[in-house]
């Protein structure tokens, strides 16, 4: 039995401890904001925060999260007014939007540890989050904009 705090709520899970958090969150906890894009840790669509650090939920099992705290896109802010979310709207970043929960979670974790990231910092931290629609220019700009407010 694993105990995990998800968006401030304590939950238990007695299924297969090897279940990736992605599928636990989506199919069991019913939190569908976290997306499946590759299942192999190579696209970033499933990015969540585990004890505040960005991780790929498709590569992190329930067992690895036992006793820890998870934040998903649904829990990043109660009202959607996290500076990263605001910057994303200000610059109209999304096209299809599918990758954006992962992008926002990755960007929020980057800014939490480095509130004045250089271009190189941004490129390095964000390069594992793919966007097939190609919103990279705006993602970059939105991180810069949010950096002023984090």
């Amino acid at each position, binding site marked *: 039995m694993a105990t995990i705090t998800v968006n401030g709520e304590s939950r238990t899970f007695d299924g297969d401890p090897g279940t990736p958090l992605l599928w636990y969150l989506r199919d069991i906890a019913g939190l569908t904001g976290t997306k*499946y894009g590759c299942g192999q840790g190579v*696209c970033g669509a499933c990015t969540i925060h585990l004890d505040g650090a960005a991780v790929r939920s498709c590569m992190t099992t329930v067992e690895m999260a036992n006793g820890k705290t998870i934040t998903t896109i*649904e829990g990043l802010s109660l009202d*959607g007014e996290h500076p990263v979310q605001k910057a994303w709207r200000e610059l109209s970043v999304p096209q*299809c939007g599918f990758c954006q929960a992962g992008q926002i979670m990755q960007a929020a974790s980057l800014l939490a540890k480095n509130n004045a990231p250089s271009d190189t910092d941004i490129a390095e931290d964000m*390069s594992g989050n793919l966007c097939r629609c190609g919103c990279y220019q705006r993602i970059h700009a939105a991180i810069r904009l949010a950096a002023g407010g984090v």
Partner: protein
Amino acid sequence: MLHYLKQEAQKAERKAAPVVIENVSRRKFLGGAVAASGFVLAVRIPDAAALEPLTPYPTGGASMPHGYGNASDPHVFVSIKPDGAVTILAHRSEMGTGVRTSLPMVLADEMEADWSRVSIQQAVGDEPLYGNQDTDGSRSMRHYIQPMRECGAAMRQMLETAAAAKWGVDVALCRAKAHHVVLLDAEKNDTGKKLGFGELAEAAMALPVPARDTLLFKTPAEFNYMRKGETKITDLRNITMGKAVYGADVRLPGMKFAVIARPSVLGSKVKSFDATEAKKMAGVEDIFEMEGVHEVPRKFGQLGGVVVVANTTYAAIIARESLVIEWEQSPNASYNTDAYFKEMSKTAAEPGKVIRNQGDFDAAWKGAKSTFTGEYHMQHLSQAAMEPLCCVARVDGDKAELWAPVQSPYGAREDIAKALGLPIENVTVHVTLLGGGFGRKSKWDFMIEAALVSKKLGGTPVLLQWTREDDIRHGFYHTTSVERIDMAFDDAGKVAGWRHRTVAPSILSTFAPDSGYQFPIEYGMGFVNLPYDIPNLRCENGQALAHTRIGWYRSVSNIPRAFAVQSAVAEAAHMLGKDHKEFLLELIGPDRTLDPKALGFPEDFWHYGDPYESFPIETARLKHVVNLATEKAGWGKPLPKGQALGLAAHLAWHNYVATVVHVDVKEDGTITVPHAVTVMDCGFYVNPERIRSQVEGAAVMGMSQALYSGITFKDGAVEQSNFFDYNIATMANFPKIVDVHIVEPQPGRNAAGVGEPGLPPFAPALANAVFAATGKRVRRMPMGAKVA
């Protein structure tokens, strides 16, 4: 796209309304509106000249399946609650272009609705009612701007008529403005009397729709939302909060999760399978075989295989790994990419089927002072939208209900009804948001699969999930191609002869018996419609049989054509010692409107499905975008070593596009793009902000396919499987700055397609810049991340 294929196969967030406000102290005081501060704001009432009649122009939308349906009828597309809340239907699928916002915005603007009081509802698949819903072919704005404007204008006039009846005045004294109808006096000044849209709704909706020729439309100066680019996409807040609903986010009570093990080679069937181990795995509920559609043409028939149903997606995925399946051999197991390129190259060296012939190429070739030959190769591509295919289906008895990220909900509905043996009325297709589409999601094989699984489960709702591996390996791929261009130069160094041979398996092979030859749609994409002033010109098509499912991918055949033609032009300019831009302008030649007949275009020349007269090819527009893009990019400016500019221009979907890419090739050969400029003349346009985002995205996708992405086959099976071997551009290396310039439309220049045309010029512009920076010419896509 599909529609044409069917024909061919038979032959073979929100802001308050920015109403115009003026300081009334500078104007005649308008009754009632006195603010305590003494600073008075009033809504200006535009005069009659603010509205104009517009003559409709024909488009291919009318000949799409179910044509325009009732797309101009406000009773179908608009509803207004007594409190004034307006709902507008979006009948096209949202896959990232912004269409779910842009089309309703056109309607809202034309009817004078306040956007902050408009909500958008996604239509189900019902083309007889809404008009065609095939969201592909850069068609949504191109074909639906007119009916949406008509619908909005009609609604506005109905509201004004309802107000006139209430007040017992002439309708000429009633003017809709900002979600109200205001009463004017005889001098056409606002009397201060007004009725809200909500108060008028019931009476307005009871009125007949005014005839098309009585409709008056806003002049561009009166647009509130159109052309402004200030309207946020409707799903923006939900997207940033993880609340937007995509295909796999649909949850039904009792829903199960399924994946399918499909054959690695097209056409191979399950010989036998052993599910003993898989059945023992936790969460697995059922495992069974699904018959595939094996008769050719397969169209969107399911591939067949073994279905695993479980209580979570994960349980289904890992159980699938334990299946032991023996597959039958398929003739397609002979498909090998290297050998296939050799074959295509050989074919391109021989005469092919002549598709366009003008003048005498052979004579020009014989009499040439010098010649150029270039052969350009391109691998298959996978659309690889970030959201893998998925569909929720509930097929309970004689009723079927499906939810999917689908580009063609009605086409899907028709085929699902057939596959289930149900009347179409019993099938409902809901459209979720699409996490990207790029053409793959207008092929509904995945929905048929989901329907069949739910049916087999006796009505249990099921979410059928494709993994990324499934998506990469079981696609409808962009074709692979060899394009060969031969040019003959005369004594003056002018191009006297041009021969273009195209060799590529055709999309048609998916829909009709494969002749190995392409068809008018593929010919119409930058091949037979080359707009250059060359006296002797021949276009030939060599045979290439398909060994995988060929489908459409954003921009389709325009990608290899633009790559070949725009690279060849740059190569020829270099050979002749001419400036590339000047040479390109010389090739385009004098300002003129092309006459397809006189130029030897084929009889069945396909002009993106539209009447030529509505979108004639005007060379001046192409030259203008070339001139503007090069000027904005600083063409000719000195750049440091390893850096250069490259140019390409291409006309597609009636949209004239020129791109200049600035490359910086690093010491280790890594190709980077600090800057790109794209100028687009797309005629009448509505949402410049989303047009820019489309072009920015096209630059990234263009870089992906120019450098990284390629699908290859070995013994009939796709060699790639996920984003670690089917690579796309990342934040580590993407076109850093993309400047987009949209040409202001002249009257009579109708709305062109926008979603696709930004893509084709990027790769050749990049290749041309790499050559200019390094002297190395790359004639294949993908060219690799580094210059060798």
